[in-house]
């Protein structure tokens, strides 16, 4: 559906032929094309603008590229900038503690429960980890059953209290239980919530304060559009989360939300989720994500 970016840039560059150096004026069409490609990929409108302004500043004054395909060259510059922006220092998941506590949060349907199962499965396969899943979603119909089915598939215990309607005390009780069951990693699955839902945001903040997690992972659907910025910022303001998980990357979305979120909260993207099965979890590769956003 999308014409490839480098072709689009090639044609934008046609107007530059014969000019000496890149100026504000003669690069305008190219910058506009890049911006458009980013917005088509769901990168936030303002961020796309800031990002392309930065790229523009970087190439101003350079000699007009005489290569056969200036579009390709320009695409590479953009890709490298994007990669750098989304990467940064790789931060390992911190699962040290007795037990280590990992809190999972995000919007409704983003893939939290599925990811919780995947993460438990991933840690179980690593030496020294004995995970337990905690069902702290007291709202969604059959949320506990769902987590139990997943726990059953991967052979990981699920802690739940079907009659308890207080997520905070469920989490606290799970920590005690982990000690008696000799589990050294707790993964707490929480209900989906909107950032504007004050009561629900307070609930998850209370869970955080009660159990003091090593990691708080914000799970976000990679198909998210312009609102990703608001949501990420609001969750980060309340939880100061330690990492981001991008889900449903087995689809064909360009995933510009990844850039918007990284740009807005500057937290590492720690995992990507790409399937409904328990073994479809991967670490994040900034370069691949940059290529995907640019449709390369």
């Amino acid at each position, binding site marked *: 559906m999308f014409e490839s970016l480098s072709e689009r840039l090639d044609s934008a560059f046609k107007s530059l032929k014969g000019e000496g150096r890149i100026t504000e004026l003669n690069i305008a069409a190219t910058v506009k094309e890049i911006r458009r490609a980013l917005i088509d990929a769901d990168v936030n409108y303002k961020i796309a603008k800031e990002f392309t302004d930065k790229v523009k500043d970087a190439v101003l004054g350079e000699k007009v590229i005489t290569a056969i395909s200036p579009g390709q060259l320009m695409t590479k510059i953009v890709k490298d900038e994007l990669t750098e922006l989304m990467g940064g220092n790789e931060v390992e998941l911190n699962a040290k503690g007795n037990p280590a506590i990992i809190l999972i949060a995000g919007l*409704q349907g983003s*893939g939290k429960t599925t990811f919780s199962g995947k993460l438990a499965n991933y840690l179980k396969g690593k030496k020294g980890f004995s995970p337990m899943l905690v069902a702290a979603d007291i709202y969604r*119909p059959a949320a506990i059953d*769902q987590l139990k*089915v997943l726990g059953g598939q991967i052979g990981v215990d699920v802690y739940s209290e079907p009659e308890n309607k207080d997520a905070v005390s469920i989490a606290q009780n799970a920590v005690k239980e982990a000690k008696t069951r000799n589990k050294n990693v707790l993964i707490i699955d929480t209900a989906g919530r909107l950032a*504007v839902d004050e009561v629900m945001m307070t609930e998850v903040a209370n869970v955080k304060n009660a159990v003091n997690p090593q990691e708080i992972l914000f799970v976000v659907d990679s*198909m998210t559009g*312009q609102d990703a910025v608001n949501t990420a910022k609001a969750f980060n303001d309340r939880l100061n989360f330690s990492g981001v998980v991008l889900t449903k990357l087995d689809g064909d979305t360009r995933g510009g939300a990844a850039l918007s979120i990284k740009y807005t909260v500057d937290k590492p993207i720690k995992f990507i989720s790409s399937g409904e099965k328990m073994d479809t979890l991967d670490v994040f590769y900034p370069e691949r994500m940059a290529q995907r956003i640019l449709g390369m």
Partner: protein
Amino acid sequence: AGKSTVDEEVLDNLEEALVGADVGIDTTVQIIERIETRVAKDKYLNTTELNNILQQEIEAMLVDAPSANSYAFDSELPSKPYVIMVVGVNGVGKTTTIGKLAHNFKKAGKNVLLGAADTFRAAAVDQLTIWSERAGVPIVKQDMGSDPAAVAFDTVQSGVSRGSDVILIDTAGRLHNKAHLMDELSKIRRVMQKVIPDAPHEVLLVLDGSTGQNALEQAKHFTAATDVTALAITKLDGTAKGGVVLAIANQFKIPVKFIGVGEKMEDLLVFNKHEFVDSLFNLEK
């Protein structure tokens, strides 16, 4: 407030508002061009006048359902039983929307039957069962892992013999780029036609209101597999605007029928163009 000119700045702000609401560049440019042709640039126009023109242009993009397939909860439905098959990608709100629809139809005095044709997602049947209890309507289900087409077939057959007015078929979430899963949907559809040749009467594609431009691809592929007849947009109780449905309605001529504004049974609204356009620009109050 007061007078303003429709100059570059106004148009830039408009562009930002539309793109920021996920309307997408192509559709945004279309809207802006239409505005430009209607008001000569730099002409003095007050905000209300401009908003009216905007409202008209955008509403014109949102198609209505053909009268043969429009209904209200309490009106007579176009056929009996009326079969609604609900489809969409993972986690958008299909099952919840079915629960809400069941509640609304039931409240309006209809006999409703649910079919649990998501036999794949963990505890999907349990989830729909809880909704059937909340709404107080019967459900047809089989074990997890059984053939979804068989469940749909059973449901429709049961609905005919019970004299149901409305049959709501839940399906598993699936990403539209997975051909075998899309084929499965076409099969579910075909199998129901063995019982009622023109079923399903409605194929409701559920879109998450916070989804960006990928929703266009969803609409394209689900339409190809199942002839989508209507859209429902969920999660509009958040800050996302759901503007991508403008592009979808415009490009594929599919009407929006329902919007989801919460997780409770009551949180379903019949789509209202005017209010939707207002909310795109936060004009409400």
